């Protein structure tokens, strides 16, 4: 076995949606230090929003990321609505969930098929992947198109949508345009199920981590943007209490704030945490598929979060029974004015 100190360093991580550097120091074969540095320059969003109208918050914060703008638009909108005490009707929250599904579909397929699958198959990138498995890449691009279309039809633009606002939307999306997406979504569902089987055959490193999982948990649905914050250690708090239970701090080597529990412990969020804490909210057939693919609730192998991402995308496609029927009917009811106007005496 090798003795002495070795340093492994990747200066630009090409498999993440952002700019990061990773450094590991080994003594012999033991890791003694690891550093994950986000060197994306600081942009001071929180500070720049001060003194501006609350209506600017969603569009400005969405510029944090062009791949997941909806996360910021919905997050900022909900924060403003909560501060204003606005009640948001179900038609709006449904439509938000739908555009969020579009974002998940396009973002997850980018992550699973185009960024991570090449690594599992020992290939340089998605172009190499297309040479050995053309249909996998074609399916990924088709699904990405479907997700983008969903965002575009509801949001007016697939990157940094313009139709969203604090309180809801500027204009209801045309019903026929939403309905026209159904065949694409059905094709996406079949593709997603096939991809889950394909991904299940990857060789996952054996790694069981003792991790605290933290995710949202909703009364009815698999959670996206609604619910309480729960953990695998039994935490169950409203979103407003986040700051009492978690804290953010800095490390010298990274521009990104790091988060910990109030006691200083690490925790994991994201698809694996959400799956583990909400498996019972998945439709039975999707959960069964995930289990056949090797993703069982309570999974502690972070590499398998790839499967959670795929299962989740399957779920999104598989929501077909819920919409466009009842969902569209609910949207149509408040067709012309899909937003909550500011109270007259604001």
């Amino acid at each position, binding site marked *: 076995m090798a003795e002495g100190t070795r340093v492994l360093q990747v200066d630009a991580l090409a498999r993440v949606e952002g700019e990061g550097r990773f450094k590991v120091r080994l003594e012999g074969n033991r890791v003694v230090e690891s550093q994950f540095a986000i060197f994306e320059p600081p942009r001071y969003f929180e500070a720049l929003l001060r003194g501006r109208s609350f209506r600017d918050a969603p569009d400005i914060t969405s510029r944090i990321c062009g791949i997941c703008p909806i996360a910021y638009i919905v997050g900022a909108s909900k924060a403003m609505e909560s501060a204003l005490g606005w009640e948001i009707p179900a038609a709006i929250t449904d439509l938000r969930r739908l555009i969020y599904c579009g974002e998940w579909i396009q973002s997850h397929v980018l992550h699973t098929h185009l960024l991570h699958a090449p690594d599992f198959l020992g290939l340089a990138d998605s172009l190499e992947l297309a040479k050995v498995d053309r249909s996998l890449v074609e399916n990924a691009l088709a699904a990405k198109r479907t997700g983008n279309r969903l965002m575009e039809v509801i949001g007016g633009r697939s990157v940094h949508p313009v139709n969203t606002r604090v309180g809801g939307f500027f204009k209801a999306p045309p019903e026929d345009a939403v309905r026209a997406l159904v065949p694409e979504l059905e094709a996406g569902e079949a593709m997603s199920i096939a991809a889950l089987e394909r991904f299940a055959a990857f060789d996952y490193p054996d790694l069981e981590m003792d991790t605290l999982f933290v995710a949202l948990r909703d009364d009815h649905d698999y959670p996206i943007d609604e619910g309480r914050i729960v953990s695998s250690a039994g935490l169950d708090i409203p979103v407003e209490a986040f700051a009492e239970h978690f804290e953010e701090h*800095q490390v010298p080597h990274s521009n990104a704030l790091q988060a910990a529990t109030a006691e200083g412990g690490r925790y994991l969020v994201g698809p694996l945490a959400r799956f583990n804490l909400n498996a019972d909210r998945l439709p039975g057939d999707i959960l069964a598929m995930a289990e056949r693919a090797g993703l069982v609730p309570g999974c502690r192998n972070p590499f398998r979060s790839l499967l959670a991402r795929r299962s989740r995308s399957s779920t999104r496609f598989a929501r077909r029974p819920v919409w466009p029927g009842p969902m569209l009917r609910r949207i149509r009811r408040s067709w012309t004015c899909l937003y909550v106007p500011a109270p007259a005496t604001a």
Partner: protein
Amino acid sequence: MRPGPYDISLVEGSISTREELERIQQVRQDSRILVTIGACATAGGIQALRNTRDHAELKAAVYPTPSFIDALDTSTPIADHVHVDHELRGCPIDKGQLLETIAALIAGRRPVIPDYSQCAECKLAGTACVMVTHGTPCLGPVTQGGCGNLCPRIGRGCYGCFGPKEGANVRALADQLSTLGVDPAEIRDLLSSFTAAAPAFAEESRRHG
């Protein structure tokens, strides 16, 4: 990554750290054609709002240990530092414009990119003017077209994500907004978003406090 030189480099993002100051010189040296894409690369981005503010105060407002943050006091467009051959506006850019630019450069011709205002796009599309019909503040008359008439067609005023059109009369628009009863802070903020540091917008927004 294969070493350069490259035929075309697409550069996104602004210059806001010392590393970026050096890297852009290298990118220029390695590129036959350099195309800047997006509001950050062409105007400095939303983060350029810090150019007129106290940088140390902004750091302290966001970071518990501001001394760990190493960044320039300004965020500036690429063209402030190196020669830029073509630019694509927008936050985000328009996909059609990107394809047109790459196709044109491969074919050795000039890309055909609109240089008229967003306002003209509304007229071409037959979209009712939101400012005339509802008094909604709109930057369409002074913003470069190219997005495809996205905001006014859903009843929303243009928020200027493609930046100022060349020769735009921003003061006349601001005066009209004042006449409509829009308060100075709102006019200032409307001009202070993703292309806030573009001279035509920066200059006018300063007049409104």
